[in-house]
C-alpha cells in the first residue's frame, strides 16, 4: 500500500471516529433528553405523530376531505363518520387529518423562511453593528411596533385569502423577532472569547460568522423556532377566523374551527375536534420548546 493510500485509510478511520464521536454524543444527548425531559419528549413524539399523519394523510383519511356527503350534513359522530360531518357533509376526521398538512405547512414554511431571513439580517446587524445595525434595527422596530395580528390582518386582507399570503404575512411578523434574537446572540458571540481568539489568528468576518456564529446560536434559534411554531399556528387560525386565512375548501384547523363556531351549540363536535387538535399541537410545540430550553440551559441541569 502506498503512503497516500495509507493516509487516506487513516483519514477515513479518523473521520469515522469523529463522526462516531459526534453520533455518540448525539445519542447521549437524546438519551439525556428523554430521561430528563419527559414531558418534552412526549410532546416531541406527539409532534412527530402529527407530522407522520400529515405525510400519509391520503392513506389514512377514510374519506376525501372535500367530498360532500349530501346524505349526512352535520352528522354527529357515528360508526361511518367517526368524528361526524360538517355543514357540507364532509368527514371531519378526514378533514382533520388533511388539515394537519396545512397547519404544518404554514408553521414550517413560516418558521423556516423566518429563520433564514431573520438569521441573515440578525447576523449582519449583530456582527457589524454601527450604522448598519442602527438602520436594520429601526426597520425591525417599525415592523415590530405594529401589533402582530394587526400586521398579519393588514397584509393577508390586502393580498387576499391564500395560504401563501398567510405565510408571507406571518413571515413578516416573525422575521424581526428572529432577527432580534439572532442579533443579540451574534453580539454575545462577537464579544465571546473564542471569537476574539479566532480573530487573533486572523480569521475573516465571513469565517467567524459562519464557523463560530452560526453553530453557536443554533440552540436559542431552535428553541425560539419551536415556540414560534405554536404562535404561527394560532395566528393562522385567527386569520382564518377573520376570513383571511386558508381559503376553502382546503381544510385547515383554523378554518374548521372558524366554520364550526357557528355550530357551537348545535354541533359541538365540529368545534371540539379541531379545537383539541390545534391546542394540543400548539401545546406540544410549546412544551417541547420549553423542554429544549431547559435541556440546553446549563444552569437548569
Amino acid at each position: 500500500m502506498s503512503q497516500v493510500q495509507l493516509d487516506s485509510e487513516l483519514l477515513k478511520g479518523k473521520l469515522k471516529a469523529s463522526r462516531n464521536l459526534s453520533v455518540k454524543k448525539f445519542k447521549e444527548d437524546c438519551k439525556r433528553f428523554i430521561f430528563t425531559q419527559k414531558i418534552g419528549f412526549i410532546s416531541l413524539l406527539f409532534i412527530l405523530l402529527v407530522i407522520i399523519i400529515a405525510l400519509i394523510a391520503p392513506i389514512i383519511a377514510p374519506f376525501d376531505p372535500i367530498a360532500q356527503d349530501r346524505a349526512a350534513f352535520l352528522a354527529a359522530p357515528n360508526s361511518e363518520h367517526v368524528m361526524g360531518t360538517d355543514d357540507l357533509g364532509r368527514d371531519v376526521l378526514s378533514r382533520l387529518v388533511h388539515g394537519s398538512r396545512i397547519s404544518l405547512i404554514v408553521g414550517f414554511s413560516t418558521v423556516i423562511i423566518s429563520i433564514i431571513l431573520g438569521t441573515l439580517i440578525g447576523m449582519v446587524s449583530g456582527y457589524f453593528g454601527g450604522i448598519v445595525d442602527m438602520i436594520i434595527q429601526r426597520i425591525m422596530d417599525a415592523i415590530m411596533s405594529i401589533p402582530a395580528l394587526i400586521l398579519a390582518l393588514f397584509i393577508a386582507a390586502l393580498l387576499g385569502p391564500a395560504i401563501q399570503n398567510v405565510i408571507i404575512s406571518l413571515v413578516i411578523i416573525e422575521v424581526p423577532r428572529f432577527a432580534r434574537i439572532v442579533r443579540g446572540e451574534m453580539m454575545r458571540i462577537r464579544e465571546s472569547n473564542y471569537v476574539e481568539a479566532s480573530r487573533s489568528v486572523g480569521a475573516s468576518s465571513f469565517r467567524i460568522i459562519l464557523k463560530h456564529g452560526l453553530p453557536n446560536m443554533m440552540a436559542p434559534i431552535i428553541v425560539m423556532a419551536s415556540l414560534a411554531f405554536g404562535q404561527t399556528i394560532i395566528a393562522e387560525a385567527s386569520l382564518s377566523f377573520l376570513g383571511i386565512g386558508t381559503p376553502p375548501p382546503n381544510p385547515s384547523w383554523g378554518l374548521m374551527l372558524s366554520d364550526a363556531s357557528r355550530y357551537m351549540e348545535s354541533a359541538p363536535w365540529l368545534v371540539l375536534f379541531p379545537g383539541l387538535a390545534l391546542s394540543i399541537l400548539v401545546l406540544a410545540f410549546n412544551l417541547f420548546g420549553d423542554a429544549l430550553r431547559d435541556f440546553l440551559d446549563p444552569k437548569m441541569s
Partner: protein
Amino acid sequence: MVEYIIRRLIFGIFVLFIMTAFIFIIMRAVPGDVVTLQLANSGATAEQMDAMKAEMGLDKSILGQLTDWVTKAVQGDLGNSLWSGQEVSQIIVDRLPVTIQLAIMSIILAILIGIPIGVISAVKQNTWIDHFLKIFSVSGLSIPNFWLGLVLLTVLSLALNWIPPLGFQSFAENPMVNLQQMILPAICLAITLSASIVRMTRSAVLEVLHSEFIRTVRAKGARERIVIFKHALRNSLVSVITLIGLQVGYLLGGTVVLESIFALPGLGSLIFESVLARDYPIVQSAVLVFGAMFLLVNLIVDVMYGWVDPRIRTK
C-alpha cells in the same frame, strides 16, 4: 432621564415614520381602491371616477400621497374617512379609549394572575404543583383567544342567560355596565399574557434564587417570605416588565378579534373594517396609533426599569 425619554420619543417618531411609509406603500400596491369600490357598479364614467380620485387626492403618485399625508399628519390633520368623510382624528379619539381600557384591564388582570402563579411555581420548583401550573400556563398559550371568547360567550348565554350588556358605555358614563362589558374580553386577552408572565416570572425568580445575593440574604437569617418577595421577586421584575412590553403587541393584536366578538367599538375592530373598505386614512392612522401605543408602552416599560433597577436608573 428626561433626556433619555426625549431621545426615545425621537427614535419612536422615526420608527413610526418608517412604519407609516411601509403601510402606505403596501396598501396602495394592492388592488382595489375606494372609488372603484364605491362606483364600480354605478356605470359611472372613467372621467367621473378620476375626478373623484383627484378630489380624494388618490391621483398622485404614492410618494406624493405619502408626503401629503405626512405633512398634514404632522400638523395634526389625519384626514377624513374616504367613506363617511368624518374626521379621522375624531374617529380615533372616539375609539381609542376602548382599546386602551381593554389593554390596561388585560394587563392588570394578567399581572394579578401571572405573577403569583409564577412565584409559586418557582418556589415549588419540580414539585407536582409546579408541573401542574406549568401545563396550565402553557395551555394558556395554546388556546386561540377568539376561541376562548366564543366559548365564554356561548356558555354564559346558555348557562346563565347572561351576556355583557350591548351598546358600549364608557367607564365615566356608567362604570358598572362598562366593567361588565369589558371583563370578558379582558379575561380572554389576559389568559395568554398571564401564561407568558407565569413562565417568565418562574424562570426569572428561579434564576434570581440561584444568585449569590440571595444566599447573602439567607445568611442574614431572613425568612423565606422576605427572600422571595422582597428580593427574588423585585429582582425578577425587570424581565417580567420587559416581557409585558414585548407582549403588548400580541395583546393589541388580539383586540381586533375580541372587539369584533364582543361588539366593542375599539380601534381593533375599526382597523379590520377599514382595511377591507380601503379607507386609507383610517387604516393609516389607526396603525400609526397602534404603533405609537406599542412604542409608548415600551417607553413606559423602560422608564419602569429605572424604577425597578437602580443600575439602569443612573445611566
